[in-house]
Protein backbone atom coordinates (compact mmCIF):
# COMPACT_ATOMS: atom_id res chain seq x y z
CA UNK A 1 0.00 0.00 0.00
CA UNK A 2 2.84 2.37 0.75
CA UNK A 3 4.39 1.75 -2.68
CA UNK A 4 1.39 3.02 -4.60
CA UNK A 5 0.26 6.55 -4.01
CA UNK A 6 0.69 6.87 -0.23
CA UNK A 7 -1.06 10.23 -0.08
CA UNK A 8 -4.03 9.16 -2.12
CA UNK A 9 -7.43 9.79 -0.58
CA UNK A 10 -8.51 6.22 -1.21
CA UNK A 11 -5.67 4.72 0.80
CA UNK A 12 -6.82 4.26 4.39
CA UNK A 13 -5.03 6.37 6.99
CA UNK A 14 -1.95 4.37 7.89
CA UNK A 15 -2.20 4.97 11.66
CA UNK A 16 -5.53 3.69 13.01
CA UNK A 17 -4.27 3.38 16.60
CA UNK A 18 -3.35 7.03 16.62
CA UNK A 19 -6.83 7.99 15.45
CA UNK A 20 -8.34 6.21 18.45
CA UNK A 21 -5.89 7.93 20.83
CA UNK A 22 -6.60 11.32 19.27
CA UNK A 23 -10.35 10.89 19.64
CA UNK A 24 -9.91 9.87 23.29
CA UNK A 25 -7.87 13.03 23.82
CA UNK A 26 -10.61 15.14 22.27
CA UNK A 27 -13.19 13.51 24.53
CA UNK A 28 -11.16 14.29 27.68
CA UNK A 29 -10.73 17.86 26.46
CA UNK A 30 -14.47 18.32 25.95
CA UNK A 31 -15.34 16.82 29.34
CA UNK A 32 -12.86 19.06 31.18
CA UNK A 33 -14.11 22.08 29.26
CA UNK A 34 -17.75 21.43 30.18
CA UNK A 35 -16.89 20.69 33.82
CA UNK A 36 -15.19 24.04 34.21
CA UNK A 37 -18.21 25.95 32.88
CA UNK A 38 -20.29 23.98 35.38
CA UNK A 39 -17.99 25.04 38.24
CA UNK A 40 -18.01 28.64 37.06
CA UNK A 41 -21.81 28.73 36.99
CA UNK A 42 -21.90 28.02 40.74
CA UNK A 43 -20.23 31.27 41.88
CA UNK A 44 -21.85 34.66 42.52
CA UNK A 45 -23.29 36.61 39.66
CA UNK A 46 -20.96 39.26 38.33
CA UNK A 47 -20.83 41.40 35.23
Amino acid at each position, binding site marked *: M*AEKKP*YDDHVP*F*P*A*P*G*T*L*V*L*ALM*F*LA*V*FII*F*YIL*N*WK*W*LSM*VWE*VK
Partner: protein
Amino acid sequence: MANQTSDFRTCPTTGLKVHLPAQTLIRINAVTAVVYILIGGILALLVALTRWPAVHLLPADLFYRALTAHGVTMLIFWVIFFEIAGLYFGSAVLLSTRLVGIVFGWVAYLMMLAGSLMTEYTILIGQADVMFSAYPPLKAHPLFYLGLILFAVGALIGCILFFATVIMAKAEGKYSGSLSLVSFGLAIAAIIAVVTIAGGAAILIPTFLWSVGLLSHIDAPTYRLVFWLFGHSSQQINVSAMVSIWYLLAALTVGAKPVSEVFSRTAFLFYAFFINVASAHHLMVDPALTTPWKIWNTGYVFHLAVVASMMHALAIPASIEVAQRKKGYVHGLFEWLKKCPWENPGFSAMVLSFCGFGLLGGITGVVFGTEQIAIVTHNTWRITGHFHTTVVLGTTTAFMGLTYYVIPLIFQREVMMPKLAMIQPWMFAIGVAIFSIAMIAAGGYGVPRRHWDITFAGAPYGFEFSPTVFLLMSVMGLGAIMAVLGGAIYCLVTVGSVFFGKKIS
Protein backbone atom coordinates in the same frame (compact mmCIF):
# COMPACT_ATOMS: atom_id res chain seq x y z
CA MET B 1 37.57 31.28 5.30
CA ALA B 2 34.25 29.89 6.28
CA ASN B 3 34.07 27.55 3.35
CA GLN B 4 37.27 25.73 4.12
CA THR B 5 36.56 22.04 4.35
CA SER B 6 38.76 21.82 7.45
CA ASP B 7 36.03 23.76 9.25
CA PHE B 8 33.74 20.76 8.89
CA ARG B 9 33.53 17.22 10.14
CA THR B 10 31.11 14.53 8.99
CA CYS B 11 28.88 13.02 11.64
CA PRO B 12 29.29 9.24 11.50
CA THR B 13 25.72 8.59 12.68
CA THR B 14 23.65 10.96 10.59
CA GLY B 15 25.99 11.81 7.74
CA LEU B 16 25.43 15.50 8.40
CA LYS B 17 28.33 17.85 7.89
CA VAL B 18 28.95 19.73 11.10
CA HIS B 19 30.44 23.22 11.00
CA LEU B 20 33.01 23.17 13.79
CA PRO B 21 32.78 26.85 14.85
CA ALA B 22 29.01 26.40 14.99
CA GLN B 23 29.50 23.25 17.02
CA THR B 24 31.51 25.18 19.60
CA LEU B 25 28.75 27.78 19.87
CA ILE B 26 26.10 25.09 20.23
CA ARG B 27 28.16 23.47 22.97
CA ILE B 28 28.71 26.63 24.97
CA ASN B 29 25.05 27.69 24.76
CA ALA B 30 23.86 24.21 25.73
CA VAL B 31 26.27 23.95 28.66
CA THR B 32 25.18 27.37 29.93
CA ALA B 33 21.57 26.26 29.64
CA VAL B 34 22.30 23.21 31.78
CA VAL B 35 24.04 25.36 34.39
CA TYR B 36 20.91 27.52 34.55
CA ILE B 37 18.57 24.55 34.91
CA LEU B 38 20.77 23.39 37.76
CA ILE B 39 20.45 26.76 39.51
CA GLY B 40 16.74 26.93 38.70
CA GLY B 41 16.26 23.42 40.02
CA ILE B 42 17.86 24.22 43.37
CA LEU B 43 15.61 27.27 43.62
CA ALA B 44 12.62 25.11 42.65
CA LEU B 45 13.35 22.79 45.56
CA LEU B 46 13.58 25.71 47.99
CA VAL B 47 10.31 27.17 46.71
CA ALA B 48 8.45 23.86 46.79
CA LEU B 49 9.69 23.00 50.27
CA THR B 50 8.51 26.39 51.49
CA ARG B 51 5.05 26.04 49.99
CA TRP B 52 4.72 22.58 51.56
CA PRO B 53 3.13 23.75 54.82
CA ALA B 54 4.59 20.92 56.89
CA VAL B 55 8.12 21.99 55.93
CA HIS B 56 7.80 25.75 55.30
CA LEU B 57 11.53 26.04 54.77
CA LEU B 58 12.42 29.61 53.87
CA PRO B 59 11.47 32.85 55.64
CA ALA B 60 9.12 35.11 53.66
CA ASP B 61 11.72 37.46 52.16
CA LEU B 62 13.97 34.64 50.96
CA PHE B 63 10.96 32.77 49.60
CA TYR B 64 9.87 35.68 47.41
CA ARG B 65 13.48 36.18 46.31
CA ALA B 66 13.95 32.51 45.46
CA LEU B 67 10.63 32.48 43.60
CA THR B 68 11.63 35.52 41.54
CA ALA B 69 14.98 33.93 40.70
CA HIS B 70 13.37 30.56 39.93
CA GLY B 71 10.91 32.09 37.46
CA VAL B 72 13.46 34.22 35.64
CA THR B 73 16.12 31.48 35.57
CA MET B 74 13.83 28.82 34.17
CA LEU B 75 11.41 30.75 31.97
CA ILE B 76 14.06 32.95 30.38
CA PHE B 77 17.62 31.75 30.83
CA TRP B 78 17.35 27.96 30.73
CA VAL B 79 14.95 27.74 27.82
CA ILE B 80 16.40 30.53 25.68
CA PHE B 81 20.03 29.43 25.99
CA PHE B 82 18.88 25.95 24.97
CA GLU B 83 16.79 27.36 22.15
CA ILE B 84 19.65 29.40 20.76
CA ALA B 85 21.73 26.19 20.73
CA GLY B 86 18.76 24.55 19.01
CA LEU B 87 18.52 27.29 16.39
CA TYR B 88 22.20 26.97 15.46
CA PHE B 89 21.73 23.19 15.31
CA GLY B 90 18.55 23.47 13.25
CA SER B 91 20.17 25.77 10.72
CA ALA B 92 23.88 25.04 10.33
CA VAL B 93 23.96 21.36 11.31
CA LEU B 94 20.70 20.14 9.80
CA LEU B 95 21.46 21.95 6.54
CA SER B 96 25.12 20.80 6.59
CA THR B 97 26.18 24.37 6.07
CA ARG B 98 28.26 27.04 7.80
CA LEU B 99 26.81 29.24 10.50
CA VAL B 100 26.92 32.78 9.19
CA GLY B 101 28.61 35.37 11.39
CA ILE B 102 30.34 33.27 14.03
CA VAL B 103 31.68 36.46 15.62
CA PHE B 104 28.14 37.72 16.10
CA GLY B 105 27.28 34.35 17.60
CA TRP B 106 29.91 35.01 20.25
CA VAL B 107 28.71 38.57 20.75
CA ALA B 108 25.18 37.23 21.21
CA TYR B 109 26.37 34.64 23.68
CA LEU B 110 28.40 37.11 25.72
CA MET B 111 25.52 39.59 25.83
CA MET B 112 23.14 36.88 26.98
CA LEU B 113 25.62 35.67 29.57
CA ALA B 114 26.37 39.15 30.89
CA GLY B 115 22.68 40.08 30.93
CA SER B 116 21.63 36.93 32.71
CA LEU B 117 24.38 37.27 35.34
CA MET B 118 23.42 40.90 35.91
CA THR B 119 19.78 40.02 36.48
CA GLU B 120 20.55 36.99 38.66
CA TYR B 121 22.97 39.01 40.77
CA THR B 122 20.44 41.79 41.28
CA ILE B 123 17.81 39.31 42.39
CA LEU B 124 20.09 37.35 44.70
CA ILE B 125 21.35 40.43 46.57
CA GLY B 126 17.72 41.32 47.26
CA GLN B 127 17.36 44.30 44.94
CA ALA B 128 14.60 42.82 42.79
CA ASP B 129 12.00 41.01 44.91
CA VAL B 130 9.37 41.66 42.25
CA MET B 131 8.64 38.23 40.73
CA PHE B 132 9.18 37.26 37.12
CA SER B 133 6.39 39.59 35.99
CA ALA B 134 7.84 42.62 37.86
CA TYR B 135 4.60 44.62 37.67
CA PRO B 136 5.15 48.32 38.33
CA PRO B 137 4.71 50.15 40.69
CA LEU B 138 6.82 47.43 42.30
CA LYS B 139 10.29 48.59 41.41
CA ALA B 140 13.49 46.61 41.02
CA HIS B 141 17.06 47.86 40.78
CA PRO B 142 17.77 49.19 37.24
CA LEU B 143 20.31 46.39 36.65
CA PHE B 144 17.46 43.87 36.81
CA TYR B 145 15.81 45.40 33.75
CA LEU B 146 19.11 46.20 32.03
CA GLY B 147 20.22 42.58 32.35
CA LEU B 148 16.99 41.36 30.77
CA ILE B 149 17.34 43.89 27.93
CA LEU B 150 20.93 42.83 27.25
CA PHE B 151 19.90 39.20 27.31
CA ALA B 152 17.01 39.83 24.92
CA VAL B 153 19.15 41.72 22.42
CA GLY B 154 21.70 38.89 22.51
CA ALA B 155 18.96 36.36 21.83
CA LEU B 156 17.68 38.54 18.98
CA ILE B 157 21.13 38.42 17.37
CA GLY B 158 21.02 34.63 17.69
CA CYS B 159 17.68 34.55 15.84
CA ILE B 160 19.05 36.79 13.09
CA LEU B 161 22.01 34.44 12.64
CA PHE B 162 19.56 31.58 12.23
CA PHE B 163 17.72 33.38 9.42
CA ALA B 164 20.97 34.53 7.82
CA THR B 165 22.31 30.98 7.84
CA VAL B 166 19.16 29.55 6.26
CA ILE B 167 19.12 32.24 3.56
CA MET B 168 22.85 31.96 2.89
CA ALA B 169 22.68 28.17 2.63
CA LYS B 170 20.06 28.51 -0.05
CA ALA B 171 22.05 31.17 -1.88
CA GLU B 172 25.14 28.96 -1.77
CA GLY B 173 23.15 26.04 -3.13
CA LYS B 174 23.48 23.91 0.02
CA TYR B 175 19.88 22.88 -0.36
CA SER B 176 17.08 23.40 -2.82
CA GLY B 177 13.36 23.38 -2.39
CA SER B 178 11.85 23.60 1.07
CA LEU B 179 13.41 23.37 4.50
CA SER B 180 13.07 20.14 6.42
CA LEU B 181 10.05 20.04 8.70
CA VAL B 182 12.22 20.36 11.80
CA SER B 183 14.07 23.41 10.48
CA PHE B 184 10.76 24.87 9.35
CA GLY B 185 9.31 24.48 12.83
CA LEU B 186 12.43 26.08 14.31
CA ALA B 187 12.10 28.92 11.81
CA ILE B 188 8.56 29.48 13.11
CA ALA B 189 9.99 29.49 16.65
CA ALA B 190 12.56 32.08 15.58
CA ILE B 191 9.85 34.27 14.01
CA ILE B 192 7.84 34.11 17.24
CA ALA B 193 11.06 34.91 19.10
CA VAL B 194 11.62 38.10 17.13
CA VAL B 195 8.09 39.31 17.93
CA THR B 196 8.56 38.32 21.56
CA ILE B 197 11.86 40.12 21.94
CA ALA B 198 10.43 43.23 20.29
CA GLY B 199 7.66 43.12 22.90
CA GLY B 200 10.24 42.72 25.64
CA ALA B 201 12.20 45.72 24.40
CA ALA B 202 9.03 47.79 24.08
CA ILE B 203 8.22 47.37 27.75
CA LEU B 204 11.54 46.73 29.49
CA ILE B 205 13.29 49.77 28.05
CA PRO B 206 10.67 52.25 29.37
CA THR B 207 10.57 50.36 32.65
CA PHE B 208 14.34 50.60 32.92
CA LEU B 209 14.12 54.36 32.26
CA TRP B 210 11.46 54.57 34.95
CA SER B 211 13.65 52.68 37.42
CA VAL B 212 16.50 55.15 36.94
CA GLY B 213 14.09 58.08 37.29
CA LEU B 214 13.98 59.28 33.69
CA LEU B 215 10.30 58.40 33.33
CA SER B 216 7.88 59.34 36.06
CA HIS B 217 5.18 56.76 35.53
CA ILE B 218 4.47 53.37 33.98
CA ASP B 219 0.81 52.71 33.27
CA ALA B 220 -0.08 49.45 35.04
CA PRO B 221 -2.41 47.87 32.44
CA THR B 222 -0.15 48.92 29.57
CA TYR B 223 2.77 47.25 31.27
CA ARG B 224 0.72 44.10 31.82
CA LEU B 225 -0.40 44.02 28.20
CA VAL B 226 3.03 44.51 26.64
CA PHE B 227 4.91 42.53 29.28
CA TRP B 228 2.90 39.42 28.50
CA LEU B 229 3.63 39.81 24.81
CA PHE B 230 7.17 39.10 26.03
CA GLY B 231 6.50 36.92 29.08
CA HIS B 232 3.98 34.60 27.53
CA SER B 233 5.19 34.63 23.95
CA SER B 234 8.61 33.53 25.14
CA GLN B 235 6.79 30.36 26.12
CA GLN B 236 5.28 30.16 22.64
CA ILE B 237 8.84 30.05 21.25
CA ASN B 238 9.13 26.98 23.45
CA VAL B 239 5.99 25.45 22.01
CA SER B 240 7.17 25.71 18.43
CA ALA B 241 10.70 24.61 19.32
CA MET B 242 9.37 21.73 21.42
CA VAL B 243 7.06 20.47 18.65
CA SER B 244 9.99 20.60 16.21
CA ILE B 245 12.01 18.58 18.70
CA TRP B 246 9.19 16.03 18.94
CA TYR B 247 9.41 15.54 15.17
CA LEU B 248 13.20 15.38 15.41
CA LEU B 249 13.20 12.86 18.26
CA ALA B 250 10.55 10.74 16.57
CA ALA B 251 12.84 10.61 13.54
CA LEU B 252 16.00 9.88 15.55
CA THR B 253 14.45 7.25 17.83
CA VAL B 254 12.14 5.20 15.59
CA GLY B 255 12.88 6.63 12.15
CA ALA B 256 9.52 8.35 11.89
CA LYS B 257 8.73 10.44 8.83
CA PRO B 258 5.88 12.96 8.73
CA VAL B 259 2.75 11.28 7.38
CA SER B 260 1.70 14.42 5.60
CA GLU B 261 4.03 17.37 5.20
CA VAL B 262 1.15 19.68 4.26
CA PHE B 263 -0.72 18.81 7.43
CA SER B 264 2.24 19.41 9.76
CA ARG B 265 3.48 22.54 8.00
CA THR B 266 0.01 24.10 8.01
CA ALA B 267 -0.11 23.52 11.75
CA PHE B 268 3.24 25.30 12.22
CA LEU B 269 2.02 28.18 10.08
CA PHE B 270 -1.02 28.59 12.33
CA TYR B 271 1.39 29.05 15.25
CA ALA B 272 3.17 31.88 13.48
CA PHE B 273 -0.06 33.72 12.77
CA PHE B 274 -2.20 33.12 15.82
CA ILE B 275 -0.32 31.97 18.87
CA ASN B 276 1.00 35.26 20.18
CA VAL B 277 -2.38 36.87 20.80
CA ALA B 278 -2.95 34.20 23.42
CA SER B 279 -0.82 36.13 25.89
CA ALA B 280 -4.01 38.15 26.46
CA HIS B 281 -5.30 35.39 28.73
CA HIS B 282 -3.31 36.93 31.58
CA LEU B 283 -5.60 39.95 31.44
CA MET B 284 -9.12 38.51 31.51
CA VAL B 285 -10.08 39.94 34.91
CA ASP B 286 -8.16 43.19 34.44
CA PRO B 287 -9.76 46.62 34.20
CA ALA B 288 -9.18 48.83 31.15
CA LEU B 289 -9.79 46.22 28.45
CA THR B 290 -13.05 45.72 26.57
CA THR B 291 -14.93 42.45 26.37
CA PRO B 292 -14.56 42.01 22.57
CA TRP B 293 -10.82 42.59 22.89
CA LYS B 294 -10.60 39.94 25.58
CA ILE B 295 -12.62 37.38 23.64
CA TRP B 296 -10.83 37.87 20.33
CA ASN B 297 -7.36 37.61 21.81
CA THR B 298 -7.79 35.00 24.50
CA GLY B 299 -9.61 32.90 21.91
CA TYR B 300 -6.42 32.80 19.78
CA VAL B 301 -8.57 34.04 16.88
CA PHE B 302 -11.11 31.17 16.80
CA HIS B 303 -8.62 28.97 18.64
CA LEU B 304 -6.63 28.37 15.45
CA ALA B 305 -3.37 27.95 17.35
CA VAL B 306 -5.10 25.32 19.48
CA VAL B 307 -6.24 23.58 16.31
CA ALA B 308 -2.58 23.66 15.25
CA SER B 309 -1.47 21.87 18.40
CA MET B 310 -4.23 19.31 17.99
CA MET B 311 -3.04 18.69 14.43
CA HIS B 312 0.47 17.97 15.73
CA ALA B 313 -1.18 15.74 18.33
CA LEU B 314 -2.40 13.56 15.47
CA ALA B 315 0.61 13.91 13.17
CA ILE B 316 3.39 12.96 15.58
CA PRO B 317 2.00 9.69 16.99
CA ALA B 318 0.80 8.86 13.48
CA SER B 319 4.34 9.19 12.13
CA ILE B 320 5.61 6.93 14.92
CA GLU B 321 2.84 4.41 14.30
CA VAL B 322 3.60 4.25 10.57
CA ALA B 323 7.31 3.77 11.24
CA GLN B 324 6.62 1.05 13.79
CA ARG B 325 4.13 -0.74 11.55
CA LYS B 326 6.75 -0.79 8.80
CA LYS B 327 8.96 -2.72 11.22
CA GLY B 328 6.27 -5.39 11.39
CA TYR B 329 4.41 -4.44 14.54
CA VAL B 330 1.02 -4.61 12.87
CA HIS B 331 -1.12 -6.64 15.27
CA GLY B 332 -4.18 -4.94 16.64
CA LEU B 333 -4.45 -1.23 17.21
CA PHE B 334 -1.61 -0.77 19.67
CA GLU B 335 1.14 -3.37 19.19
CA TRP B 336 3.27 -0.63 17.59
CA LEU B 337 2.98 1.39 20.78
CA LYS B 338 3.94 -1.51 23.03
CA LYS B 339 7.01 -2.26 20.93
CA CYS B 340 8.35 1.29 21.04
CA PRO B 341 11.87 1.79 22.42
CA TRP B 342 10.68 2.82 25.89
CA GLU B 343 14.14 2.23 27.37
CA ASN B 344 15.59 4.96 25.14
CA PRO B 345 15.52 8.19 27.17
CA GLY B 346 15.21 10.20 23.96
CA PHE B 347 12.05 8.34 23.08
CA SER B 348 10.47 8.20 26.53
CA ALA B 349 11.18 11.90 27.09
CA MET B 350 9.50 12.73 23.79
CA VAL B 351 6.38 10.71 24.58
CA LEU B 352 6.15 11.97 28.17
CA SER B 353 6.59 15.55 27.00
CA PHE B 354 4.02 15.05 24.27
CA CYS B 355 1.39 13.47 26.53
CA GLY B 356 2.02 15.86 29.41
CA PHE B 357 1.92 18.92 27.23
CA GLY B 358 -1.24 17.93 25.39
CA LEU B 359 -3.27 16.11 27.97
CA LEU B 360 -2.44 18.27 30.99
CA GLY B 361 -0.94 21.52 29.76
CA GLY B 362 -2.90 22.12 26.60
CA ILE B 363 -6.30 21.26 28.01
CA THR B 364 -5.86 23.32 31.17
CA GLY B 365 -4.39 26.21 29.19
CA VAL B 366 -7.30 26.52 26.80
CA VAL B 367 -9.92 26.04 29.50
CA PHE B 368 -8.36 28.31 32.16
CA GLY B 369 -7.69 30.97 29.55
CA THR B 370 -11.35 31.16 28.56
CA GLU B 371 -12.57 34.68 29.29
CA GLN B 372 -15.15 33.81 31.94
CA ILE B 373 -13.43 30.78 33.45
CA ALA B 374 -10.49 33.07 34.29
CA ILE B 375 -12.72 34.40 37.10
CA VAL B 376 -12.21 31.14 38.98
CA THR B 377 -8.62 30.50 37.89
CA HIS B 378 -6.79 33.83 37.66
CA ASN B 379 -3.71 34.00 39.92
CA THR B 380 -4.64 30.80 41.70
CA TRP B 381 -2.42 27.76 41.84
CA ARG B 382 -4.42 26.31 38.95
CA ILE B 383 -2.37 28.61 36.73
CA THR B 384 0.93 27.62 38.29
CA GLY B 385 -0.01 23.97 37.80
CA HIS B 386 -0.97 24.64 34.20
CA PHE B 387 2.27 26.25 33.14
CA HIS B 388 4.40 23.68 34.91
CA THR B 389 2.74 21.04 32.73
CA THR B 390 3.51 23.05 29.60
CA VAL B 391 6.90 24.59 30.24
CA VAL B 392 8.38 21.93 32.51
CA LEU B 393 6.61 18.68 31.64
CA GLY B 394 6.38 19.72 27.98
CA THR B 395 9.31 21.88 26.96
CA THR B 396 11.92 20.91 29.53
CA THR B 397 11.31 17.18 29.19
CA ALA B 398 11.59 17.47 25.39
CA PHE B 399 14.85 19.42 25.72
CA MET B 400 16.14 16.77 28.11
CA GLY B 401 15.28 14.06 25.60
CA LEU B 402 17.12 15.92 22.86
CA THR B 403 20.16 16.27 25.11
CA TYR B 404 20.68 12.51 24.98
CA TYR B 405 21.24 12.94 21.24
CA VAL B 406 23.14 16.23 21.45
CA ILE B 407 25.77 14.59 23.67
CA PRO B 408 26.88 12.01 21.06
CA LEU B 409 26.14 14.11 17.96
CA ILE B 410 27.56 17.47 19.02
CA PHE B 411 29.77 16.80 22.02
CA GLN B 412 30.99 13.52 20.49
CA ARG B 413 30.83 11.76 23.82
CA GLU B 414 28.98 8.66 24.91
CA VAL B 415 26.18 9.14 27.42
CA MET B 416 27.47 8.03 30.81
CA MET B 417 25.45 6.04 33.33
CA PRO B 418 22.94 4.75 30.76
CA LYS B 419 20.76 3.09 33.44
CA LEU B 420 20.30 6.40 35.23
CA ALA B 421 19.68 8.13 31.92
CA MET B 422 17.01 5.53 31.14
CA ILE B 423 14.94 6.26 34.25
CA GLN B 424 15.62 10.00 34.26
CA PRO B 425 12.80 11.21 31.96
CA TRP B 426 10.29 8.98 33.77
CA MET B 427 11.25 10.22 37.19
CA PHE B 428 11.29 13.84 36.12
CA ALA B 429 8.06 13.79 34.12
CA ILE B 430 6.05 11.77 36.64
CA GLY B 431 7.27 14.03 39.45
CA VAL B 432 6.25 17.13 37.53
CA ALA B 433 2.88 15.61 36.64
CA ILE B 434 2.21 14.78 40.30
CA PHE B 435 3.05 18.23 41.64
CA SER B 436 1.28 20.02 38.81
CA ILE B 437 -1.94 18.07 39.21
CA ALA B 438 -1.79 18.69 42.97
CA MET B 439 -1.32 22.40 42.30
CA ILE B 440 -4.24 22.52 39.88
CA ALA B 441 -6.49 20.72 42.36
CA ALA B 442 -5.43 22.94 45.28
CA GLY B 443 -5.87 26.01 43.07
CA GLY B 444 -9.45 24.91 42.54
CA TYR B 445 -9.95 25.51 46.26
CA GLY B 446 -8.61 29.03 45.86
CA VAL B 447 -5.01 28.54 46.93
CA PRO B 448 -3.22 31.62 45.56
CA ARG B 449 0.02 31.52 43.59
CA ARG B 450 3.16 33.32 44.79
CA HIS B 451 2.09 33.13 48.42
CA TRP B 452 4.35 32.38 51.37
CA ASP B 453 1.89 31.23 53.98
CA ILE B 454 -1.58 29.86 53.35
CA THR B 455 -2.13 29.41 57.06
CA PHE B 456 -2.22 33.23 57.24
CA ALA B 457 -0.35 33.43 60.54
CA GLY B 458 -0.14 37.11 61.43
CA ALA B 459 -2.98 38.12 59.14
CA PRO B 460 -5.76 40.20 60.72
CA TYR B 461 -8.47 37.69 59.93
CA GLY B 462 -7.38 34.11 59.92
CA PHE B 463 -9.17 31.29 58.22
CA GLU B 464 -8.27 27.75 57.35
CA PHE B 465 -8.25 25.99 54.05
CA SER B 466 -9.81 22.54 54.15
CA PRO B 467 -7.61 19.59 55.13
CA THR B 468 -7.81 18.41 51.52
CA VAL B 469 -5.79 21.46 50.52
CA PHE B 470 -3.06 20.60 53.00
CA LEU B 471 -3.01 17.03 51.73
CA LEU B 472 -2.70 18.28 48.16
CA MET B 473 0.13 20.60 49.14
CA SER B 474 2.01 17.69 50.70
CA VAL B 475 1.51 15.69 47.51
CA MET B 476 2.87 18.72 45.66
CA GLY B 477 5.97 18.69 47.88
CA LEU B 478 6.60 14.99 47.28
CA GLY B 479 6.10 15.35 43.53
CA ALA B 480 8.45 18.30 43.50
CA ILE B 481 11.17 16.32 45.29
CA MET B 482 10.79 13.54 42.74
CA ALA B 483 11.01 16.02 39.86
CA VAL B 484 14.05 17.76 41.36
CA LEU B 485 15.78 14.38 41.75
CA GLY B 486 14.97 13.64 38.11
CA GLY B 487 16.41 17.02 37.18
CA ALA B 488 19.51 16.39 39.29
CA ILE B 489 20.12 13.10 37.48
CA TYR B 490 19.78 14.98 34.19
CA CYS B 491 22.43 17.49 35.23
CA LEU B 492 24.68 14.72 36.56
CA VAL B 493 24.45 12.61 33.42
CA THR B 494 24.79 15.58 31.08
CA VAL B 495 27.70 17.28 32.82
CA GLY B 496 29.38 13.93 33.49
CA SER B 497 29.09 12.84 29.86
CA VAL B 498 30.17 16.16 28.41
CA PHE B 499 33.34 16.33 30.48
CA PHE B 500 34.16 12.72 31.27
CA GLY B 501 32.20 10.61 28.77
CA LYS B 502 34.00 8.25 26.42
CA LYS B 503 35.04 10.16 23.30
CA ILE B 504 33.46 9.15 20.02
CA SER B 505 35.93 9.66 17.18
